C-alpha cells in the first residue's frame, strides 16, 4: 500500500457518524442505511403481524365475533401487502446494504445518496398505505393480489392512495436494486471474480435483476387500474373490449418473479450459515449459482399457474403445469447441496444454524405442496382454499422470515460487537418453530377439506383445526417480542464478539473488527483466498 493512498484514507474517512437524528435522516453510509431498513422492516413485521392476529382471532371460532366481514377483508389485504412489501423485501434490502459491500471488499454502495433516497421513500409509502384504514370506505379490501374488477369498479376510494403507495414502493425497489447490481458488478475488490463471490452476493445480484425487470410491470398494472378508475379506459372492462383476466396476466407476470425475489436472498443466507456451522465448504458452489439463475429464468415463464381456474386454453394449462414442475429441479439441487454440506460435517447448533436447518426442512415442505398445486386437475380442487394459504406461508414464514431471523442472529455480533444471548435465542427459535407449525400445518387439512380462504366465517367441520391454528399464531406472534428483546439486549451489551465470531466462518466480513467500523475497505482488501464459504 503506498503512502498516497494512505493519506487519502485519512483525509476522507476519519469521520464517524453524525450525532443525533440527522445521522439517520441524512446518512449516506451503507451500514446506517442497512440498519434503517432492518428496523423499518421489523416495525412493519409487527404491524402486519397485528393484522394477522386480527384474522386469526376472528377465525378462532366459527361465526362473526370480533370484526365485521368488511374489516376482515381489509385485514387480510393489508396483512399481505405489508408483509410482502414492508417486512420481507426491506429486510433483504437491509441485509444487502449491510453485507454486500463488506463481502466484496467495497467502501460503500455504489451510489450512496440514492441509497438513502431508496430507503426514505418507504416510510412515506407505508404511512400513506396504512392511513387508508382511516379513510372513508376503509383500507384496500380486495386481497393483496388486488384482482380487477374488485380493485377497480368495486374498490373503496382509498384505492387511489394504494396505487400511489405501490408506485412509491416500486421506485424505491428499482433504485435499491440498481444500487445493488452496480455495487456487485463494479465494486468488487480487485481479484474477486464473479465465481468467487459469496452466494449471498450472487443471489442478490439475481434478485436485483428480477426486481428491475418486474417492478416496472407492477407499476404498469396499477397505472392501468388508475386509468380505468379515473379516466374511463377499458383495460379490465369487457364492456369496452378489455378483459379482467388481462389484469391477472400482467399482475402475475410481476407476481411470480416477486415470489422468488422473496426467497433467493434467503437461499444466499442459508448457503452462508450452513457451511459455517457444519465446518465444511459449501457443497456444489457452482451448481448453486446455476440453480439460482435457472430459478430466476423459470420465474418469468410460469405465471399463469396462479390462474388455472380462471379459464385459460387447455394448451396454456398444460404448458404452465409442466414449466412449473421444472422449477422443482434447480430447487432440488439446492436442497441437496445444503444437505450434502451438512453430511459428515462437524456440526454445532447455535441459533442461526437452528433456523437454517428448520428453513431447509420447512421450505421443502412448502415446495412439495407447491408441486401438488402445480398439477392442474388437482389445483381445480385446491384453488382458493386454505391449502394454498398453508403452501405459501410455509415458503414465506419458515422460508423467508426464518432466513432473515437466521441472518440477524448470524451477523448481529458483527453489527453490534456483542454476542446475543444464546439461551434466549434458542428459546426464541423453538417457540417460533412450534408456533409456525401449529399455525400452518393444520391449514393443509382444512384446505383439503374445502375451507375457502379470505372468508371470516366457516362451516362447523373446520372449527377444531382453526382453533389450533389460531393458538399457534398467537404463540408465534408473541414470541417475536422475545426476538425484539434479544436484539435490544445484544445492542446494549453482552459478551464481546471476536473478529471472526464463528469458528467456521469464512468471508471478508469476518476479517474486519466487531463491531464493523463505520467505514470499511476504503482501500480494497487483497487476500481473496477466503472470500466465500
Amino acid at each position: 500500500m503506498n503512502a498516497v493512498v494512505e493519506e487519502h484514507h485519512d483525509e476522507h474517512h476519519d469521520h464517524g457518524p453524525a450525532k443525533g437524528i440527522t445521522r439517520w435522516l441524512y446518512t449516506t453510509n451503507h451500514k446506517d442505511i442497512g440498519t434503517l431498513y432492518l428496523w423499518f422492516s421489523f416495525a412493519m413485521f409487527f404491524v402486519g403481524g397485528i393484522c394477522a392476529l386480527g384474522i386469526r382471532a376472528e377465525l378462532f371460532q366459527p361465526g362473526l365475533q370480533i370484526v365485521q366481514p368488511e374489516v376482515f377483508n381489509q385485514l387480510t389485504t393489508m396483512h399481505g401487502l405489508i408483509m410482502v412489501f414492508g417486512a420481507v423485501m426491506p429486510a433483504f434490502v437491509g441485509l444487502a446494504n449491510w453485507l454486500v459491500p463488506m463481502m466484496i471488499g467495497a467502501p460503500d454502495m455504489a451510489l450512496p445518496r440514492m441509497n438513502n433516497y431508496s430507503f426514505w421513500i418507504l416510510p412515506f409509502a407505508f404511512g400513506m398505505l396504512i392511513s387508508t384504514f382511516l379513510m372513508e370506505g376503509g383500507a384496500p379490501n380486495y386481497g393483496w393480489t388486488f384482482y380487477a374488477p374488485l380493485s377497480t369498479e368495486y374498490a373503496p376510494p382509498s384505492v387511489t392512495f394504494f396505487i400511489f403507495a405501490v408506485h412509491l414502493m416500486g421506485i424505491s425497489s428499482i433504485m435499491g436494486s440498481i444500487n445493488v447490481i452496480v455495487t456487485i458488478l463494479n465494486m468488487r475488490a480487485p481479484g474477486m471474480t464473479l465465481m468467487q463471490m459469496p452466494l449471498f452476493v450472487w443471489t442478490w445480484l439475481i434478485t436485483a435483476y428480477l426486481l428491475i425487470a418486474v417492478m416496472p410491470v407492477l407499476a404498469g398494472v396499477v397505472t392501468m387500474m388508475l386509468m380505468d378508475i379515473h379516466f374511463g379506459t377499458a383495460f379490465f372492462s369487457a364492456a369496452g373490449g378489455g378483459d379482467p383476466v388481462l389484469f391477472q396476466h400482467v399482475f402475475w407476470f410481476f407476481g411470480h418473479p416477486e415470489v422468488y425475489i422473496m426467497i433467493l436472498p434467503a437461499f444466499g443466507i442459508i448457503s452462508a450459515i450452513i457451511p459455517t456451522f457444519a465446518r465444511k465448504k459449501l457443497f456444489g458452489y457452482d451448481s448453486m449459482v446455476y440453480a439460482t439463475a435457472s430459478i430466476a429464468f423459470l420465474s418469468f415463464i410460469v405465471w399463469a399457474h396462479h390462474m388455472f381456474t380462471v379459464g385459460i386454453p387447455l394448451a396454456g394449462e398444460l404448458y404452465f403445469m409442466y414449466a412449473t414442475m421444472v422449477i422443482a429441479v434447480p430447487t432440488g439441487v439446492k436442497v441437496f447441496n445444503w444437505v450434502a454440506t451438512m453430511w459428515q460435517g462437524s456440526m454445532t447448533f447455535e441459533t442461526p444454524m437452528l433456523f437454517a436447518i428448520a428453513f431447509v426442512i420447512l421450505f421443502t415442505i412448502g415446495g412439495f405442496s407447491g408441486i401438488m398445486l402445480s398439477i392442474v386437475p388437482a389445483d381445480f380442487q385446491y384453488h382458493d382454499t386454505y391449502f394454498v394459504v398453508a403452501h405459501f406461508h410455509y415458503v414465506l414464514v419458515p422460508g423467508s422470515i426464518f432466513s432473515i431471523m437466521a441472518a440477524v442472529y448470524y451477523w448481529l455480533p458483527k453489527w453490534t460487537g456483542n454476542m446475543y444471548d444464546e439461551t434466549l435465542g434458542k428459546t426464541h427459535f423453538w417457540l417460533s418453530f412450534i408456533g409456525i407449525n401449529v399455525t400452518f400445518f393444520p391449514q393443509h387439512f382444512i384446505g383439503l377439506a374445502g375451507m375457502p380462504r379470505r372468508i371470516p366465517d366457516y362451516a362447523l367441520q373446520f372449527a377444531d383445526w382453526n382453533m389450533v391454528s389460531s393458538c399457534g399464531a398467537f404463540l408465534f406472534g408473541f414470541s417475536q417480542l422475545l426476538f425484539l428483546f434479544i436484539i435490544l439486549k445484544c445492542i446494549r451489551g453482552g459478551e464481546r464478539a471476536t473478529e471472526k465470531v464463528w469458528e467456521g466462518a469464512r468471508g471478508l466480513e469476518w476479517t474486519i473488527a466487531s463491531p464493523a467500523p463505520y467505514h470499511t475497505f476504503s482501500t480494497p482488501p487483497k487476500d481473496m483466498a477466503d472470500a466465500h464459504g
Partner: protein
Amino acid sequence: MSNEETYQEYFVPHSSKLPILASLGIFLIVYGMGNMFNEMSSGTDSSFGEIVLFLGGLVMGGTLFFWFSEVIKENHSNLYSDQLNRSFVWGMSWFIFSEVMFFAAFFGALFYVRTFVVDWIGGVGERGPSDMLWGGYEPHWPMMNPPDPEKFAGPKELISPWGLPLINTLLLVTSSFTVTFAHHGINEGNRKKLTNWLLATIFLGVVFLFVQGYEYYHAYVDLGLTLASGIYGTTFFMLTGFHGAHVTLGTFMLIVMLFRARSGHFSKTDCFGFEAAAWYWHFVDVVWLGLFVFVYVLGS
C-alpha cells in the same frame, strides 16, 4: 479494476439533506395527485390535491436541481474516479432497462387483447362462452364498436399511420442522428458543432411533441377517438401518451445538456451527463418505432 499503484479512492459523499427532501417531494406529488383524482371522480369542489401536488413539484424540482448541481460540482473537483463513472454508466443502463419493462407491460396488454380477447368476446375459441354477455356481438380489430356502446362509445375513425405519425417517425429518427452528430462535436472538441446539433435535436423533439399534441386534439375533437372510447383508444392513448411523456423528459434532459454545453462542460473523456441523455433519447426513439409498427400500422 485498476492495480494498486494507480488506485483512486472511490468517492463516498458525506451525509446529505437531498435524499430525504426528494422523498418528501415525491410523496407530496403522489399524495397531491391521489387527492386530485379522487376529488375529480367524486365531483368534490376542492383544490387541496392541486396545492399539495404543486408544493411537491416545487420541493422535488428544487431538490433535483441542487442534487444534479452537486454531482456536477463534485465531478469538476476531480473527486470521481473512473470506477465511479462506471457506476453511473451501469446505473443509467439498468434504469433504461426498467423503462423498457414498463413499456413491455403496455405492449403486452395490447398484444394480449389483439391476439386473444377480441376473438373470445365474439365467442370464438376456447373461451367462447363469454359470448353470453353480448350475444351476437361481432368484434373487429381495431375495435370501433365496443360490446357495450352505452358505457364505451366507439371511435368514428382512426388516425392514419401515413400522415402525421409518419412525419413524427421521420422527425424522431432524424433526431437520433442529430444527437449523434452532437456527440461527435464533443469528441472532436468542436463546441459549435455540439451546441448546434443539440439545438437541432431539441427542435425536432419539440416539433414532435407539437405534432403529437395536434394529433390528440384531432382524435378527440374530430374522430371521437378518446381514452374512454373502448380498448382501442385505451391502448392507443396509453402507449403513445407514456411515450410522449418520455419524449418530454428526454427533451428536458437535452435542454439541460445544451445549457451545460454552453457553460463549457463536457470533453471527450468526461461527458457522462450528455451520453446518458443521448441514450435515453435513443431509447424513446426505439419505443416510437415499436409504436409506429404495432399501434399505428398494424393497429389500423
